C-alpha cells in the first residue's frame, strides 16, 4: 500500500483511529464493523504502513485535528418559546381543510374510478345529487310545491 492509497483509506478510517495515550508511534485502528469498512485486510495494511511512515502518521494527525475542530462547533440551541412559535407557524401555513364541495368533487372522482357497475354508479350519483339539491331552498320549495307538501 503506498502513501496515496493510505491517505484515501484514512479518510474513511479516521473515525475509528486513535492514538495510545503515551505512544505516538503506535496506532490502534478498531476492527471494522461489519458492512461499514471495506475490509479488515485494508485496515491491517494501513496499520502496518502507519507504523513505518511518518508522513502518513502526520496526515492522520491532521485528519484527527480537523475532526476535533469540526466538533468544537456546537449545535445551535433553540429556546422552548422559539420552538413553540415554530410549531404554531408550521401549522398556520398548512393549507385549509378541504371544504364540502371539494369533498364532494373528490367523492365523484373516486366513484368514476370505482369498479362498481355503471348503473350502481348512476344511482349513487343521482341520489347524492338529489339530496344536495334539496339543500338549496329554492329547489326544495319547488319540489314541495310539485309533490303538494
Amino acid at each position, binding site marked *: 500500500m503506498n502513501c496515496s492509497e493510505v491517505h484515501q483509506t484514512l479518510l474513511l478510517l479516521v473515525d475509528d483511529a486513535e492514538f495510545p495515550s503515551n505512544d505516538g508511534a503506535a496506532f490502534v485502528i478498531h476492527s471494522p464493523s461489519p458492512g461499514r469498512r471495506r475490509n479488515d485486510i485494508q485496515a491491517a495494511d494501513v496499520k502496518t504502513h502507519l507504523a513505518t511512515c511518518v508522513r502518513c502518521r502526520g496526515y492522520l494527525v491532521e485528519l484527527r485535528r*480537523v475532526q476535533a475542530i469540526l466538533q468544537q462547533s456546537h449545535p445551535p440551541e433553540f429556546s422552548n418559546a422559539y420552538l413553540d412559535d415554530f410549531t404554531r407557524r408550521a401549522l398556520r401555513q398548512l393549507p385549509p381543510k378541504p371544504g364540502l364541495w371539494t369533498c364532494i368533487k373528490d367523492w365523484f372522482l373516486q366513484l368514476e374510478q370505482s369498479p362498481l357497475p355503471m348503473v350502481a354508479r348512476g344511482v349513487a350519483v343521482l341520489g347524492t345529487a338529489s339530496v344536495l339539491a334539496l339543500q338549496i331552498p329554492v329547489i326544495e320549495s319547488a319540489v314541495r310545491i310539485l309533490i303538494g307538501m
Partner: protein
Amino acid sequence: MTSCADSWNDDDTSDTTLVERARRGDRAAFASLVNRYRRLALSLAWRMTSDAAAADDIAQEAFLRAFRRLDSFRGEASFKTWLLRIVVNLAANHRRSRKREVLSDPAGIECHLATATTTQISDQHEIAEHVREALAALAPHYRSVVVLREYENCSYQQIADILGIPAGTVMSRLAKARALLRERLMRFWKGQQT
C-alpha cells in the same frame, strides 16, 4: 443533542400512526410530528446553511412540503428519513447571499459556546467562523454528507437512505469532503501557529 442514532419519540404513538392520522386531516397528529422533528430539521438546516433565518425558512418549508405530500409518502423509508431528505434538498438549493451577515439569529436561536474565558470565546468564535466558512465552501453534495456524519451521527447507510444514493457513494463523497476540509482548516490552523 438529537441525532440519527437517537430515538426521538417522546410518546408511544409511532410515526406511521401519526402520518396515517395526519393524512386523514388530523392536524394534531401532524403537530406531533412537527414537535418530534423540529429540532432535528432546524439543526440540520442550520448546519447546511450557517444561517439561522434560512434554517428557519427551510425547516418551515420542509414541514409544509411533507404535509402536502403525505399522500405520496409510501412508507418505504421512515418519516424521519423522508423529512430529512426534504430538508437536505431544500438546503442544497438555498442560495445564500454572498455577503454573509454576522449570524442574524432569530430570537431564540443561539450559537452555543461552552463556558470559557473571553479569549477562549474569541478563539472559539474564530474557529466556529472558519468551520462555517470551510463547510460553506463545500459543494452541497459534499456538505450534506459531512453534516449528517459529523454532526448528526448518521451511519453510512442512514446517510445513503436520506440522500437516496448508494452507501459506496456516501463513502467516496465523505472521503473527498474530508480531504477538502482538511486542506482548508489546516491552512487556517497553520496560519494561527505562525
